[in-house]
């Protein structure tokens, strides 16, 4: 059932990044993606759960049995990265970094000096 060779979309990568620091439920993912991209990426529930289904079936995330105690809604499900998922996210981040480096070396990104 592995389809892990399929390329990651930007939205999928965003979701993986969001889950990098621990398990979260659906709305938390939506909110964080929106906040961290300063409102540039706004996922709808449909898009988000389409991605979650893909990531689940690819084995990049799993449903987490561990739930924060304060959570009241029992219907809410939490997701966390698997080791595979973390690997894929890291590989993707490195790939993007290399791309970015090339873009910089061509002086495409003059205005955006790294901090």
């Amino acid at each position: 059932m592995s389809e892990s060779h399929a390329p990651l979309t930007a939205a999928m990568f965003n979701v993986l990044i969001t889950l990098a620091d621990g398990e979260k439920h659906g709305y938390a993912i939506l909110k964080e993606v929106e906040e961290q991209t300063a409102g540039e990426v706004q996922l709808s529930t449909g898009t988000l759960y389409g991605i979650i289904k893909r990531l689940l079936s690819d084995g990049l995330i799993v449903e987490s049995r561990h739930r924060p105690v304060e959570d009241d809604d029992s219907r809410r499900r939490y997701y966390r990265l698997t080791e595979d998922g973390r690997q894929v996210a890291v590989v993707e981040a490195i790939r993007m970094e290399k791309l970015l480096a090339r873009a910089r070396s061509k002086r495409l990104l003059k205005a955006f000096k790294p901090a």
Partner: protein
Amino acid sequence: MSIPNESFADRFYRGLLRILPFDFRSEFGDDMEATFRQQRVATARRQDSMGIARMWWTTITDIVRMAPREHVSVLAHDTQFALRMMRKNLGYTLAAVLILGLGIGANTSIFSVVNSVLLRPLPYAHGNQLVILRQQATRAGVTDMPFSVSDINDYRQRNRSLSAIVEYHAMTFTLLGGTEPHRVRTGVVSAGFFQFLGVQPVLGRTFEPDDERAGAVPVLILSYEFWKKQERGDPNIIGKKYQMNDRAHLVIGVLPAIPQYPNENDVYMTTTSCPFRMRPAFIANRGARMMRVFGRLKPGVTLDQARADLGSIAGQLEKEYPASYTEKTGYGIVPLALREELTHEARPLLWTLLGAAAFVLLIACANVANLILARMARRERELTIRTAMGAGAGRLLRQLLTESLLLALLAAGVGIAFAYGSMGLLTSFAGQLTPRAREISVDGWVLGFAVVCATLTTVLCGSLAAIHTRGNMAASLKDEGSQSAPRASRSLVRSALITAQVAFSYMLLIGAGLMVNSLIQLQRVNPGFVPQHVFAVGVDLNFTKYPDSQSQRMAARRLIERIQPLPGVLSVAVSSSFPMDADNVGGGRPLRFRAFGDNRPDTEMPPVQSVRRVTPEYFRTVGIPLITGRAFRDSDTEESPLVVLVNQSMARRTWKNEDAVGKRITFDGEHFMEIVGVVGDVREFGPREDAPVQLYRPMMQDPFAGNVLVRTAADPELLIPAVRRAVLEANPESAVVKVKTLDEARSEAVASPRTTAQLFGLFAALALVIAVAGIGSMLALWVRQRMREIGIRIALGAAPSDILSTVLRQGMVLVALGVACGFGGALALTRLLKKLLFEVTPTDAPTYAVVSALLLAAALLACWVPARRAARIDPQTALRTE
């Protein structure tokens, strides 16, 4: 699970989720709702109405966009899985596809005929408004009297219900201009004939009113087939001149490849080009009736209104021309829908065959449902485990349905291939029944039919199996092993399916048995002549070269002189026609004769249905016995007294027990002919029809050389080329129309019942094989599932014969039950076949006995194999395998 106080927005969102696949919803639905609620509340708190609207917009469009993708992905997954399962059970898959394929194929092929012949509209403009007009003289027993020119003109001028009336008659002329004289079938039509049918030419033009003026240049339109075959599709054909009837005819157009009604013709000409139709004497004679007439109903006019309208004109004509339309004959005219007219003969037969094919499909369905159930028994634990692991029941059901749908689609493919393959056979079969046969094709409707058949089959087989499995799912886990005895409910369903298969097979076998029996009766009928070693050569004398009796007499003499001396010829005769000649159909206008001294009025005179002109050797050549008196002699010439021979039917009907020989009769009241002998009855129009009232005249006194008949010592085929050559040498510029042995003619006369019996037999055989294989495999499974039980019984001392009889009983009880049901069904249904049967009643006891014996024997054989295997079970092995 609606929650109190739930907002409208949340309920709306839940509704929206329903367009997603069931699986997706059941996995993420609740979670999505929760997430959406939070998102909605947060958005409402933080953003203006634009922001809220934007959120709704993206939510709705995203879900609508992803729904089809998700459905496809589920379907693809199911299909992949189903294919994997099918590959794993290749034997089962092949068996199911083949059985269903044959069932669907049988139906699809017959439906392609039903569709083309009975359901599709005529391929002409406003085909459903076309009518054929029939003049009738009901009291004289004439239902199809042709029209004279005056008849046509009067109806054309006076009617108010038809927007057009066109005429048609067929002739055969000899066409000169090619390498050898060519006989062409010629349709002679009104100028408006092709506009009437809405036919556009592929080349040139169709007829115009000017072409039908008296004295117009003779013009021809070629049929598509003639153009392609004789002229090799020459694109410059327009303007070519043919010599025909001693006049030059100009080609003005080529018809498209459409079915031609009422006959197939090679060329068409207008009425003023036909040398018979154009004669002033013919035109003036109200009684010279030769043409057929077609009309088109005016928009909004019904057939009944047209009938009333034309009927009133018939009444007027009767008053105005009492000599031509005598009231005593019951003169009248009826319009008949052309479509009905062209298909009424084929209708009962085709529906019967479709019914038979439907039975085959039902049996195939029952069989495949059983196969699926049997396989379910083996897959039960797999399915149960999948359920236990969380696969929804709906999901499993759909998985099973996907499997059977795939199966059915494959089967539909087999079925469509089958329909394509059988097209040639079916077209020639239907050609015996209806001129629409050449329209038969596999079109969208037929493909649709095959797919609908397949889908229904799926629903029938798949859901039966699936629903059944669902019911048993829970119980399954409790079972200790796969070889445990199956639960009672399932074996009940399977037993019912077997019984149904046997019952339907029995009914089909009875139908086939009756048809075959009827065919045997038909072939047993004594035709009244000896067809072996006789052949007929159809001759068409070019009538412009043989215009009168004298030249025709000479032509006949020359034919005999040329052929008689050929080695191997026993006898030769020239005649107007021969028994069971397909071109010599019955009906038409019966001739009436008057016996000398009979003073009854004309209309009460007895009819004679066939008058044949023959040379003296005809009776010896064809093998018709002389009963009393003498046959014709060479001395019966144009100068000697007029003589005739009559058949037994005519003698018996007219003179009862008196001797007919020596009696004198007349057709015209003037010339009396003496009956010099009585000959045996001949079934002229096929074994199904009684011998007609028939009379023979000597060729020399009434010449018409249509056929040469030759009786040979050896195989007639060997002599045909020499005779054919001799015919052409005897009369140059005449054409050989056809060559046929009388055996062939006789066989063709029963071609339609034979094909029906063959198709029915094929369906029945198919059904029998499927049903018997079904019984065998069910019993084999039954034995396999009871290995341990049987092993224990043998270990406890049961004799092999006990085991054998137990297993046999298991199968044969179902078979007996099926036969009983089938017997009842057959008694009820075979009544529908009555019209198709010849001298066999639908309850023919011998047929029922033979079919029952056959079915029981086949079933016994099928049960015997697993029963014997059961009886030979080694108890140790059986117990060890557990």
